[in-house]
């Protein structure tokens, strides 16, 4: 089960990077990065998954005494929560810069931005 999620995550990373590297349109590149980002999160969550266990929340089904035997690893989940929030910020930043480039250059084609090209 964890391997399937992990393989899906790796495939998503590859798809996202392929999209970001081959497309010339800034919006498509941003979407590629977002897909790769989802893949990274999926891999991280899959690392903390333990077969046959439940979410790290204590209630009547998971009493405090049995917690260590019944729950999955809570740490990757906390890290992925951080990563998702930072990812939203990064995406918003990329969109804002794409908008600025569109306003200054009148195009979203990355091939037309030649100032930093060597």
């Amino acid at each position: 089960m964890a391997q399937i999620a992990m393989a899906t995550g790796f495939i998503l990373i590859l798809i996202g990077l392929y999209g970001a590297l081959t497309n010339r349109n800034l919006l498509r590149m941003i979407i590629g990065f977002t897909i790769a980002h989802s893949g990274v999160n999926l891999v991280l969550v899959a690392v903390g998954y333990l077969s046959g266990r439940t979410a790290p929340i204590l209630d009547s089904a998971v009493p405090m005494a049995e917690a260590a035997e019944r729950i999955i690893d809570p740490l990757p989940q906390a890290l992925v929560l951080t990563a998702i929030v930072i990812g939203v910020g990064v995406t918003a930043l990329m969109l804002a810069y794409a908008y600025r480039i569109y306003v200054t250059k009148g195009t979203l084609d990355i091939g037309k931005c030649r100032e930093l090209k060597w």
Partner: protein
Amino acid sequence: MIRRAFVLLLLLALGAIFLDLLLGFVPATELNETARYYAERSAADLGTANITTAIIVTYRGLDTLGEVTVLFLTAAIVGLVLSWGRRSAEGPQRQLLPTGELLTTGKNLLVPLILLLGVYVFVNGHLTPGGGFQGGAILASGILLMLLTDPMKRFSHGMISAVESFSGLVFVGLGLLGVALAGGFLDNRLLPIGTVGELFSAGVIPIIYSFIGLKVGAEFSSMLVNLSETEDS
């Protein structure tokens, strides 16, 4: 085409690394030592039912403070980048089609419920799946629905910044109070821990997480509002 070949070669190499990682991955059958500590101690020491919340707000609270700071910086930079050379709002605006009846009625019905759900999610962050970040994102989705219905609607930037700054100050202030009155920075045992599973339990975790929720909601809203205000320029 040589560029595409390079890209494919690069991805193939990366894929080989991933395949190696995947084949060598052996899922654990037992919790490792850190996770076991969190699983056994967080309810007894901190009084939270949701162990992920205990990690985010208390054990690794400093990380969360850093994360909220990064988010604040991002929101500020988005505002800065988008406001360069913006024309005044008085200029001729793009004519939009009137919003449909369905969307308007749906918005009137749904926005209060969405905001209520957001508040519920972050107030109960220490008991149920969810918390400040998720609740804040839900609050911002309510704002997004309002912007979809009326793209020319203007939210007060001062109000958003005030909510954001106040929540940030409360977060840091409670952390510092923890140094003075409890075990250290962001220690939640300022208030009594109470019974695990009740709303008023886990010390200051619900308070901190509620203010994180407000702060995240304000930051996401400010990004959305800034992006939406590019419409009329």
